[in-house]
């Protein structure tokens, strides 16, 4: 939709060609040559490589984008499913309606992201070529946010346009992948921990090792998100996953995983779809995400219990980022600012049931749903936060080798 509203060719390659044609200093041959070169680089870009750039470091070409926010009152936002307050009656997102009323900016909200990896696979080539992916905000998990910031695929945020950034929770203000939060802003956070079916396994679980009890054989599911499953296994072995650890600690954790997959203790390693196995009864316990359990309990009569294991749980966040070549950065910043008002953040938290990153959202929740104020999975206690760790950032080589080993261990 937004594409049709853009008059200038946004693709830097096309723009370069257009400039060349405009300057008239060209022969037929040079045009053909340029077209050929475009074809080749386009082809390579489509393969997901940077083609000619051989060295390391950031690979994206610098892009100069004119911000069209003044003339085009729109912002395109790609997010995960069930991640924004939604009114089934009106089929609208109430907070987005409020945002439009307040600012005149309409939001094209899409639930385009169903996995960090798959979304990256989809847009990486375009970002690498400095092209507009049609989104002005993308919402990605810490480690993927780290990757695309490192690769130069994001625009710098102007904090002057986001005064409410002062409401960001103190423990989220400094992150190692984005010092000073100049490229990213937290959308929601959550834990990975352990959960079990209360009626089928009344004695419950305390630690990750409890999952390996014989009576749970074949009834365990763990997440295919490496940082959560491995993070919990490493924490169970006493490793501080935020601190310095390396190949040997990771390898030891991987051995535990392999062993329990080989013995049939762990039946499946899954992404979002683990929820179906909990509901169908195939899985009785496992490593899960906190918000999912809150939502599932809401829809299925409170069948499960979630805890942060004794060794500790992982704390992750999804972050809003403005991709390179997005022509609506100022609009995107206004939207971020809007969602950092405590009253708005509370409306979102009441629906999505993940941890709100906004100071004051808890007080604002009193007015919306007093019952949720004391829900530690939405407004964590200090004790919980002390037991929740962020997985440290990996460099490119570590990321490739750890992911590869993890994927091989789970059989893919």
């Amino acid at each position, binding site marked *: 939709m937004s594409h049709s509203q853009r008059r200038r060719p946004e693709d830097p390659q096309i723009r370069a060609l257009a400039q060349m044609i405009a300057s008239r200093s060209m022969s037929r041959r040079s045009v053909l040559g340029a077209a050929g070169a475009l074809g080749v680089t386009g082809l390579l870009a489509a*393969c997901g490589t940077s083609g000619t750039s051989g060295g390391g470091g950031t*690979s994206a070409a610098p892009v100069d984008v004119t911000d069209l926010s003044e003339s085009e009152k729109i912002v395109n936002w790609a997010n995960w499913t069930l991640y924004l307050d939604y009114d089934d009656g009106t089929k609208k997102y109430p907070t987005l309606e409020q945002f439009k009323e307040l600012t005149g900016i309409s939001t094209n909200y899409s639930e385009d992201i169903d996995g960090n990896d798959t979304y*990256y696979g989809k847009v990486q080539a375009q970002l690498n070529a400095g092209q507009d992916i049609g989104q002005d905000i993308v919402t990605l998990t810490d480690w993927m946010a780290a990757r695309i910031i490192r690769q130069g695929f994001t625009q710098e945020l102007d904090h002057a346009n986001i005064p409410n950034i002062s409401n960001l929770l103190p423990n989220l203000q400094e992150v190692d992948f984005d010092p000073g939060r100049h490229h990213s802003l937290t959308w929601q956070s959550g834990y990975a921990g352990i959960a079990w079916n209360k009626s089928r396994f009344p004695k419950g679980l305390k630690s990750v090792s409890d999952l390996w009890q014989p009576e749970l054989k074949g*009834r365990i599911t763990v997440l295919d998100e490496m940082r959560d499953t491995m993070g919990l296994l490493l924490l169970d072995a006493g490793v501080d996953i935020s601190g310095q650890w390396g190949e040997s600690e990771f390898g030891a954790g991987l051995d535990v995983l392999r062993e329990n997959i080989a013995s049939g203790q762990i039946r499946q390693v899954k992404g979002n779809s683990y929820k179906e196995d909990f509901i169908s*009864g195939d899985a009785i316990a496992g490593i899960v995400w906190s918000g999912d359990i809150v939502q599932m309990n809401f829809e299925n009569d409170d069948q499960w219990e979630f805890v942060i294991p004794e060794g500790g749980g992982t704390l992750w966040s999804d972050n809003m980022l403005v991709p390179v070549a997005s022509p609506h950065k100022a609009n995107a910043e206004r939207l971020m600012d809007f969602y950092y008002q405590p009253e708005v953040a509370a409306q979102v938290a009441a629906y999505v049931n993940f941890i709100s990153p906004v100071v004051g959202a808890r007080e604002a929740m009193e007015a919306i749903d007093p019952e949720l104020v004391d829900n530690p999975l939405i407004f964590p206690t200090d004790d919980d936060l002390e037991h929740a760790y962020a997985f440290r950032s990996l460099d490119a080589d570590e990321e490739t080798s750890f992911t590869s080993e993890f994927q091989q261990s789970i*059989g*893919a």
Partner: protein
Amino acid sequence: MSSRVLGRRGKKLDLRSAEELRAERRKGRTGQYLVLPGMIGLALFFALPVLVLLAMSLYTKPPGAEIGEFVPALQFSNYAVMLEAYWPVLLRSFWFALIATVLALLIGYPMAYLVAVRLRQHGLLKGILLVLLIAPFFSSFILRTQAWKQILSDEGFIAQTLKAVSLLPADGHLTATPIAVVAGLTYNFLPFMVLPIYANLDRLDTRLLEASGDLYANPVTTFTKVTLPLSASGVFAGTLLTFIPAAGDYINASLLGNNRNTTMIGQVIDSRFFRVIDYPGAAALSFVLMVSILILVIIYIRRFGTRELM
């Protein structure tokens, strides 16, 4: 073939005028031009991507490179590394696909025969059954597989019954096992087996079956000597249409399996591409899969293929 036709008509051609000959040639060329769009399409959308895939499979990652950054090279070791790690998965994929193809044939042939031959005189019933055969195509492949997951689940009717009659151990299960994956493959590709066989048997001249009976052949002999050979090209098409997509399938393997013992090559390619961001590795595996299927199919055609397929 065309030269033979011309040769046989050689004498007649001499009698025609040069004008007629030219007209004839023009007509021949029009036919060639009509093939052009198809050929260009094939070149653009098949040959070129395959070449890109081949080139990609030989790319290398320079030291210290960013994730997803690869440079052109001739790194043939990509193939060795991938094959060494994943040859069991590749073999398993072909094995699963083979079992599913045989099962689909055993289930599908009688179905096709019933509709095409037995019910030939019963227009309405035949029509209803035909619609039922095609009906699965009207709903999503993924949804149907998802439904099977519920049917086969531990708390489901089938698993509970099997446990009650001790066919399944008390702590056993059906989902996340090779049985579930092969069953899913068989189920999902069954229509691809049935329809070509049906199309073939529908043209079967039943007078030949009567003649066979008149010559004192029993039903088994009639089937093996008359019906089966006459429907061979349908069986052939059905087995290819089932085996080839089944070998590369990953929906069944990930929904019904998703376990170390059920991983199929499609899942590995997906994981190398999207998770590990190892494009050369994923490309190498895809290429190996394509070439292996091609070789298997060529062997199959050589051994069992009918003349018109050659």
